[in-house]
């Protein structure tokens, strides 16, 4: 059932050839005509039903509930089987017609202006999503749907964090048709907007976008099975714990107890062995836990990234991956805010990295961050990053002030003591106290580790204000590298807390759209004057770039090529040399 990467979506767009209809739209500037002539698009303009097999899928997914109701009937031979049977009958009378009615009353259609979805049995819902607000049309295929040749279409918009509308299920061909139609209408819309602007720049832009759109999709990155397994081997997961607990839920506690009582002899042997050699037991537990974590990491990665393929299709990155649930996603390059390279200590040892992009308004599954390459060597990562957003890595990075070690250490120590003091105070006398020292006090042994962590924090924390953006490296164990282009700066901050003021330090931060809540590129503990200068430089880059862009937009020189952001960025001054911590430029 699984379509091979070559015969589906990237080829699909070239079969329907939306780029051809689009170029006629751009030049004849009659969009309605263009979308009428494109035959496959007409197919979704009339209200459409879901695929009939949807009924089957919904029925199948509702069966577990029925089984739960009827469970007592199957297990007991007693007389009280009538009640569950009655409930089962009621369930059948309500749920089955509901499934059919839902199916009958659900319809969708796609017009050049909007996607209209009508649904609801008791309460009619008529939802229309303007085409230009659609960010992403994602096709998802879960295992059951894949077996039946069905697909789920999810429409995401800029305004909301979650999926705006979901059409489940339609046939795979229909899903691709929907996506093609939405894209074609979107392009027609953009072209219409461009034509309404003044002639010279719009022509240049239209031809540029046509050229980009008509270039055939190109595979940028794909992962073989071996590669995916290798990626999994570097990933630990506690998923097995969840698995064990969820399996235990299905086991009757009484059966489990009986089984344990019956096999008490065997268990006693094990318990005795454990008491005799506690060190081996502890080691064994650690080894087993690590092995299980390792295995479930591999399985999870395999399930998620099997057959990972990334294409460049016009101005969009498209990817597809997954073993049981095949997910297809689109990342419009114009929406990319920040590039993020991540790595863990083990991955770093062998040169593996993960490339993510921070986007705004798309699916916020991962706090607005979307994986572009889950597992690749540095050179590949940089090559991909260059396709996503050309940036030139700076040769040298600045360090933050070494005083950050002290502050970092004090902060962690404060947290430790805040937890420790009450624990030690309330620790009962007769509880575990090796060598007559209460257990909480033993955790003071962690303090040297805090020192090491503080040093590593300083050691890996670097930043560079380059001519094309801000680069920040940070992380004690998991390392992050953020690359923020100048035209994605939002608001610049310099903050100093009480302790920082005593040490004459500041924290710098450049806000971006869609930044994650718990890993963001702030530059902690820069010497205060240097921090002030850095904010000035950052803002100056932003200001210079936009001033250039504004004057270009106001006086479009017909002889010069269309405005190039990269070129403009090059005219921004190279990073100002940050003043030495020793010489203070301010009195």
């Amino acid at each position: 059932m699984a379509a091979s990467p070559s015969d589906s979506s990237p080829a699909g767009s070239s079969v329907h050839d939306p780029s051809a209809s689009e170029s006629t739209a751009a030049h004849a500037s009659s969009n309605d005509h263009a979308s009428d002539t494109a035959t496959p698009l007409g197919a979704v303009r009339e209200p459409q039903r879901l695929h009939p097999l949807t009924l089957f899928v919904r029925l199948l997914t509702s069966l577990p509930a029925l089984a739960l109701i009827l469970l007592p009937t199957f297990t007991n031979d007693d007389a009280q089987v009538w009640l569950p049977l009655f409930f089962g009958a009621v369930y059948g009378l309500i749920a089955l017609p509901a499934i059919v009615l839902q199916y009958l009353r659900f319809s969708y259609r796609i017009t050049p202006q909007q996607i209209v979805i009508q649904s609801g049995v008791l309460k009619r819902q008529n939802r229309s999503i303007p085409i230009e607000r659609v960010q992403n049309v994602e096709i998802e295929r879960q295992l059951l749907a894949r077996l039946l040749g069905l697909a789920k279409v999810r429409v995401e918009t800029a305004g909301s964090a979650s999926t705006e509308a979901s059409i489940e299920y339609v046939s795979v061909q229909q899903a691709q048709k929907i996506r093609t139609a939405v894209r074609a209408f979107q392009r027609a819309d953009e072209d219409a907007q461009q034509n309404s602007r003044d002639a010279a720049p719009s022509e240049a832009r239209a031809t540029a976008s046509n050229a980009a759109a008509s270039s055939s999709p190109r595979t940028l990155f794909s992962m073989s099975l071996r590669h995916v397994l290798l990626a999994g081997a570097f990933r630990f997961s506690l998923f097995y714990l969840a698995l064990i607990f969820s399996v235990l839920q299905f086991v009757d506690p009484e059966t489990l107890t009986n089984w344990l009582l019956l096999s008490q002899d065997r268990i006693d042997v094990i318990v005795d062995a454990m008491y005799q050699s506690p060190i081996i037991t502890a080691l064994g537990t650690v080894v087993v836990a690590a092995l299980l974590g390792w295995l479930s990491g591999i399985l999870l990665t395999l399930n998620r990234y099997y057959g990972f393929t990334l294409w460049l299709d016009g101005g969009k990155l498209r990817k597809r991956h997954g073993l049981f649930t095949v997910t297809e996603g689109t990342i419009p390059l114009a929406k990319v805010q920040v590039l993020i390279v991540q790595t863990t200590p083990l991955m770093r040892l062998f040169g593996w990295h993960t490339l993510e992009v921070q986007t705004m308004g798309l699916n916020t599954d991962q706090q607005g961050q979307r994986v572009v390459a889950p597992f690749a060597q540095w050179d590949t990562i940089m090559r991909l990053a260059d396709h996503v957003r050309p940036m030139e890595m700076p040769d040298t990075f600045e360090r933050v002030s070494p005083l950050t070690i002290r502050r970092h250490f004090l902060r962690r120590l404060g947290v430790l003591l805040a937890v420790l003091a009450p624990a030690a105070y309330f620790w009962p006398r007769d509880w575990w106290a090796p060598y007559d020292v209460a257990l909480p006090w033993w955790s003071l042994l962690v303090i040297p580790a805090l020192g090491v962590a503080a040093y590593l924090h300083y050691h890996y924390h670097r930043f560079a204000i380059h001519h094309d953006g801000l680069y920040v490296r940070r992380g004690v164990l998991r390392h992050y590298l953020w690359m923020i282009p100048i035209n994605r700066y939002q608001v610049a901050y310099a903050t100093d807390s009480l302790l920082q003021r005593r040490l004459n330090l500041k924290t710098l931060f450049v806000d971006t759209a869609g930044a994650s809540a718990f890993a963001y590129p702030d530059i902690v503990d820069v010497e205060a004057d240097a921090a002030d200068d850095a904010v000035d430089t950052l803002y100056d880059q932003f200001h210079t770039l936009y001033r250039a862009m504004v004057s270009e937009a106001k006086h479009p020189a017909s002889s010069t090529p269309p405005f190039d952001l990269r070129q403009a960025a090059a005219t921004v001054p190279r990073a100002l040399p940050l003043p030495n911590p020793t010489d203070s430029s301010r009195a």
Partner: protein
Amino acid sequence: MTSSTSVPSSDVSSAPDVSRRALLPVSRLTALEADLQSVWRIKLCLLHTVVFLTALFFGITQWFSGANGAVILGVLGGLLLLMTLYIVFWPRWRYQAWGYDVHEDELVLEHGVITHVRSVVPLRRIQHLDVSQDLFEREFDLGRLVIHTAGTRSSDVVIPGLPLSTAEHIRDDVKQYILDDPLTEDAL
């Protein structure tokens, strides 16, 4: 506001002036209206009255159940003293720490007593602005300017304690700046 229109295109190549635009010391920024301290004090008074009454009620119940009256009086007196000091000094410190300035292309803010925060908001990054006013602010004819950007941490930046007319003036100026912006780039 709109003097960016006068920038000739030849400026692209000329060296940009690296002035300390963004980083004026707080004394040189525009202060908020002094009446804002009164607004903050009134709100703190209301809040602290509720807290103190709760403490008083708890103290009386303790007294009736036989606790030492002197201790209860001492604790309540100490609480009252602390609250009064807080109401007197905190709004003043907070007010003194606040400063803002509207420049040609950006908004500069500084605030925070314990942690100083200085932020530079480029005007072209502002998505929309609101002017709002609550019951107490209305008495003093003050308004607050709420600035929304797409940034995650700075999705809403608030400047409290502006004269209402100033707040509306800034809002209209910034709106005009955004409307006059010749760039059609989609910042997101």
